[in-house]
């Protein structure tokens, strides 16, 4: 063998063989050298592997120690955080039992953490708190992953706590529930503030409603009297002043209505009527209201019906006219030459639905692009209106936009500075076939022929009585006036009236009570006497209450003389001649 160092295993193997042929032959030497080398090299390989094993073990041991330390450190840090956090952290198992509660639990509930662990969440919602159980169960049943609710909880110390519960459900890879984690946060202070605010807001709304009623009463007189004066013979030079008086009063009324409406929108207290009305009739009213004013300013007023549009539709005509009135008033205000008007067209229709597009246009001063977003904001007006002598409250467009938004529509403006403006919106209405059209479809006629109606006026406000009496006298009606509900009941039971005009807020007995009493009378004719509520309150609630009490129709003050006349006319007794019977 050539190698100096014979591997110990080979040495032993050769000694055992003890065969000269093997150890000394030339052919064997080469083979033995290779075997010897392989033995040595395998030894080295084993050492090498052992070293790898040892080094790796050492490193893994060290890494493991470091990890343990990190875990300990993280745990301590977490514990510190959890201890000092104000809310409660909790963990529930899949059956809803608390398996972890942070120390803040005791402060919130007055209960010990140790005693509360392993108890089901529902076991805390008993007695006064039972009603909140459903809320929590719903929280568990929702398919959403993260959920939140606020509980009202009366704790051990009889304190009311509002607790915000946030919960996140956890699932294993197979989608099976493995419990939940979440937080309880004491939001009592926040909730109390919220409640206070809600109460304050309610008080504000009530105050606004009251104020509106109180302001409408004198305005009613103002407008009524102006109308009366205009109807009576007057000097030509007085006409302008009278018109201005009427306009100012109406304007004041619009402002009050605007503020009220905005209040309602903010309180989300707006209901839209679904009543049949005639689009043609409504457009005619706009023509009458605006044509004159437009001509006064030497501008043209147009109503363009484009293509076929349905006449009788079901929807809220009052809100529609409010929006269009507002837009037309603006158009009139900002236009000094050219024309203003409305385009009406049908965008689409199915067998009983129709989408109508309204465009209020003008050739006025227009609105610059950068101003267009601002004009819809509360109490904002177009830049140019600063110089206007008669600015509004800046609520008009904002109200229009909100009213349309609540009906699922939007108000678009197409305009450029100096190029006029178009305000456009689409509204969907249910349509009726024309043979069902009501009498309102006809163009209104203003023909104040003498009223043969026998009327009882129930009104405590002297000014209102004065205005109303003047109109009724002018229309040649028979009427009696009483000051409160009690007198009204007496009057109805003693005499025969074709119709009662009933104020609602009155001393001694109010209009609601009086109406109820009349509706309970034994005489069938008296019991069914038509009652028209006449009130300065414009709210839906008042209207609904009045209808509940039994009134047949509802008019708000200041009343539109024409409308009142038409209603009274409808209640005129009909005398049939014998040959017809």
């Amino acid at each position: 063998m050539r190698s100096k160092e014979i591997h110990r295993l080979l040495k032993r193997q050769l000694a055992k063989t003890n065969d000269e042929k093997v150890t000394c032959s030339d052919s064997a030497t080469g083979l033995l050298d290779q075997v010897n080398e392989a033995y040595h090299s395998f030894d080295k390989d084993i050492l090498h592997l052992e070293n790898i094993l040892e080094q790796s073990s050492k490193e893994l041991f060290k890494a493991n120690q470091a990890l343990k330390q990190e875990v300990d450190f993280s745990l301590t840090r977490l514990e510190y955080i959890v201890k000092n956090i104000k809310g409660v952290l909790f963990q529930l198992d899949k059956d809803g039992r608390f398996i972890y509660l942070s120390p803040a639990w005791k402060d919130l509930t007055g209960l010990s953490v140790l005693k509360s662990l392993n108890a089901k969440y529902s076991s805390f919602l008993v007695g006064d708190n039972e009603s909140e159980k459903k809320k929590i169960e719903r929280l568990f049943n929702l398919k959403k992953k993260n959920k939140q609710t606020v509980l009202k909880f009366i704790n051990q110390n009889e304190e009311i706590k509002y607790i915000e519960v946030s919960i996140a459900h956890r699932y294993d890879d197979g989608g099976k529930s493995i419990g939940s984690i979440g937080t309880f946060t004491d939001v009592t202070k926040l909730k109390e503030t919220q409640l206070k605010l809600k109460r304050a807001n309610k008080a504000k709304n009530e105050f606004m409603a009251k104020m509106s009623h109180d302001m409408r009463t004198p305005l009613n007189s103002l407008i009524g009297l102006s109308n009366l004066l205009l109807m009576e013979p007057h000097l030509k030079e007085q006409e302008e002043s009278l018109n201005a008086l009427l306009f100012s009063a109406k304007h004041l009324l619009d402002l009050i209505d605007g503020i009220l409406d905005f209040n309602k929108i903010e309180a989300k207290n707006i209901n839209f009527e679904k009543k049949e009305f005639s689009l043609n009739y409504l457009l005619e009213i706009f023509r009458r209201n605006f044509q004159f004013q437009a001509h006064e300013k030497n501008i043209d007023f147009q109503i363009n019906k484009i293509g076929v549009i349905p006449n009788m539709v079901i929807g809220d005509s009052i809100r529609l006219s409010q929006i269009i009135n507002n837009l037309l008033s603006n158009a009139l205000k900002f236009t000094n030459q050219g024309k203003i008007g409305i385009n009406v067209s049908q965008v689409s229709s199915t067998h009983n639905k129709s989408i109508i597009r309204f465009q209020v246009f003008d050739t006025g001063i227009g609105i610059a692009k950068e101003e267009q977003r601002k004009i819809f904001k509360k109490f904002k007006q177009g830049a140019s209106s600063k110089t206007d002598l008669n600015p509004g409250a800046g609520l008009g467009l904002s109200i229009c936009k909100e009213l349309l938004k609540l009906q699922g529509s939007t108000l678009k403006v197409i305009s450029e500075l100096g190029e006029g403006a178009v305000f456009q919106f689409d509204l969907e209405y249910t349509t009726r076939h024309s043979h069902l059209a009501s009498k309102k479809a006809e163009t209104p006629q203003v023909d104040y022929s003498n009223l043969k109606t026998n009327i009882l006026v129930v009104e405590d406000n002297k000014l209102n009585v004065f205005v109303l009496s003047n109109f009724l006298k002018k229309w040649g009606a028979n009427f009696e006036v009483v000051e409160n509900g009690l007198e009204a009941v007496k009057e109805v039971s003693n005499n025969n009236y074709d119709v009662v005009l009933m104020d609602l807020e009155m001393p001694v007995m109010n209009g609601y009570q009086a109406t109820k009493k009349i509706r309970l009378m034994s005489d069938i004719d008296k019991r069914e006497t038509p009652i028209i509520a006449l009130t300065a309150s414009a709210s839906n609630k008042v209207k609904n209450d009045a209808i509940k009490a039994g009134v047949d129709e509802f008019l708000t003050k200041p009343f539109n003389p024409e409308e009142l006349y038409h209603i009274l006319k409808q209640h005129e007794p009909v005398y049939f001649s014998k040959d017809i019977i």
Partner: protein
Amino acid sequence: MEVVQQTLIESSWHSQLEKLTMEPSIILLFISPLFPDKEEVLTYLTKKFPKASITGCSTAGEISNVSVTDRTISFTAIKFNKITHKKVAVPLNKIENSFKSGVNLGNKLLHKDLKHILLFSDGLNVNGADLISGLKSVINSTSVTGGLAADGPDFKKTFVVNNNKLQEKTIVGIGLYGDSLKVGFGSKGGWDSFGIERLVTKSEKNILFELDHTPALDVYKSYLGDKAKDLPSSGLLFPLSMRTTINKEPIVRTILSVDEKNKSLTFAGNIPKGAYVRLMKANVDRLINGAETSAEIANKSNNYTPALAILISCVGRRLVLKQLVEEEIESVRDVLGSETKITGFYSYGEIAPFGEFSACELHNQTMTITTLTEEV
């Protein structure tokens, strides 16, 4: 395509070459640094075959047919019928210019008919990864295979063959042109990573200074134990598996040299800071399986028998396989069949495409196989 393949040995190389009658287009020579008459062989060949392009490089073991030898030359003469070729050599004066040299080489070989590039580079004075990046920036999707020259287990001096010259600091590339060329390639290792994952905390290009804030050389020495004295060659026993992002497939990097003063290690490819590395180990059977898989990949799309297979296997594999080293060549032979001529060498780095999306990458610790066939 005609191929003559044989092992030239010290005592008989002259008579072996005298018998050769063909007119080769290309002669591949994988020369042991220990072979005494290197220059004489080259002089003889350039004289006898003045038209042939002669290339190749120094080795850490020569592969001929199924044998692995030292102190020999693995000689292969190739004659193409239709395929044309172009040999270019570019100098690599500074290791920092590796990228530039790659660009330079690519530009010289680029042509619309270019089908494949065979590449042999100095194995020590090069940043293989940069060289490949430079080349890739020019040649787009053309495939490239080849290897880095080796110096046995010594890591001292390597050379490439450029016709009648043995050159250090040089890259030689042969461009193969024409549709009749069919190329196959595969590159697989068979190594496994083990132990904890380490973060590269300090490095500069292909020089690794620190792993987890510990000098990289110390980590290596602790794992090498007694074999630390054999560095850098014993470093081949611990290649690194490196990934630059969580989702990327790890690639293997192997040691080229060590620096005791800086306690740093120089690798055949870049080791960026922030990458995660693990040490790797191998055993004989897994390496042999790796070679077999590599052959299967190289052969997979071929329904023909390749005329020539060039096997470039890493020197690190030889250190593990030792006396069994031929088994990995035999496993390749079993896949390719007995018709294919086999040549090759043990290298300091292999070059081959990586998957389907990259024309070429630098590999370490793999058996990289290139098969060449000319369609009739």
